[in-house]
């Protein structure tokens, strides 16, 4: 790649409005993801209280544990923006630290979800058991899959940073990764409220 081509690639492509086309496309993708999660959340709200047999949400949901997972994901969002700020000022030492922190935050969340799911299965709640199980596992499992993709994405960025291939010229790449990670976070904010905090009270 010539120097001019490499410079152009690092700066990214811009639309006729002067906006980065990758960022614009990613916002459109996030918009489409809103529709996906809206269908899953509304399906959960419609069917979760129509189970003919237990366990029911109030029997099984662990609010203190999920509150910790929520706190963990919020902190990982903070570390993500701190990583972006470090990349933008070309402070790669701290960028690596914050990127790895975000990866670890995501992994802790995923491990918590694995523990939660296995705990539920031990108590008889499976995907086939009742409508609550079906809609709960599909909703939170889809969110967990998004977190898993985010962790992989962040880890590849961290590897590139360790190889010296991530600099302030690639700040837009980090920003787009951050957009994905924060979107996963805002979806969890809604899931935590609607599934964990509101539902048990109305079922109880």
């Amino acid at each position, binding site marked *: 790649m010539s120097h001019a081509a490499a410079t152009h690639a690092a700066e990214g492509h811009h639309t006729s409005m002067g906006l980065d086309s990758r960022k614009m496309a990613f916002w*459109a993708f996030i918009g489409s993801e809103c529709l996906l999660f809206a269908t899953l959340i509304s399906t959960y709200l419609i069917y979760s209280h129509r189970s003919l047999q237990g366990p029911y949400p109030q029997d099984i949901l662990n609010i203190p544990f999920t509150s910790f997972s929520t706190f963990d994901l919020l902190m990982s969002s903070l570390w993500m923006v701190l990583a972006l700020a470090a990349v933008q000022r070309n402070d790669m030492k701290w960028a690596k630290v914050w990127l790895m922190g975000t990866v670890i935050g995501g992994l802790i969340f995923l491990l918590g979800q694995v523990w939660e799911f296995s705990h539920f299965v031990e108590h008889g709640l499976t995907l086939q058991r009742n409508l609550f199980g079906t809609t709960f596992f599909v909703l939170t499992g889809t969110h967990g899959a998004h977190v898993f993709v985010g962790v992989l994405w962040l880890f590849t960025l961290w590897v590139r940073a360790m190889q010296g291939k991530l600099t302030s010229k690639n700040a837009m790449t980090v920003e787009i990764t951050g957009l994905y990670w924060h979107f996963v976070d805002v979806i969890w*904010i809604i899931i935590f409220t609607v599934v964990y905090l509101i539902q048990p009270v109305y079922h109880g």
Partner: protein
Amino acid sequence: MAETHATEHPHPTAGLYIRVATVLFILTVLEVGVFYVPTFHPILVPALLILSVIKFCLVVMFYMHLKMDNRFFTMIFGGPLLLAFGMAMALMFLFKVFVLK
């Protein structure tokens, strides 16, 4: 490219990010607190929804930079978000979710 510079603004500082995280932490503690205190149960649903909307807006505005970025990004995100909200509300009305026992 001049147009790009005219529409893009600098991102917040690390200090602002930490202040937003502190507010998000406090709001999460409030959410869990409201859930456990029986006095708040009559207003639980509106209180929790308001708190989560505030958290949602804080993350989108400051961490996803919509407050500083070009408004076109807000439109690209806000349009489908409103559509998604309307669709979810329509589905829940159709399936009588709001008829509580």
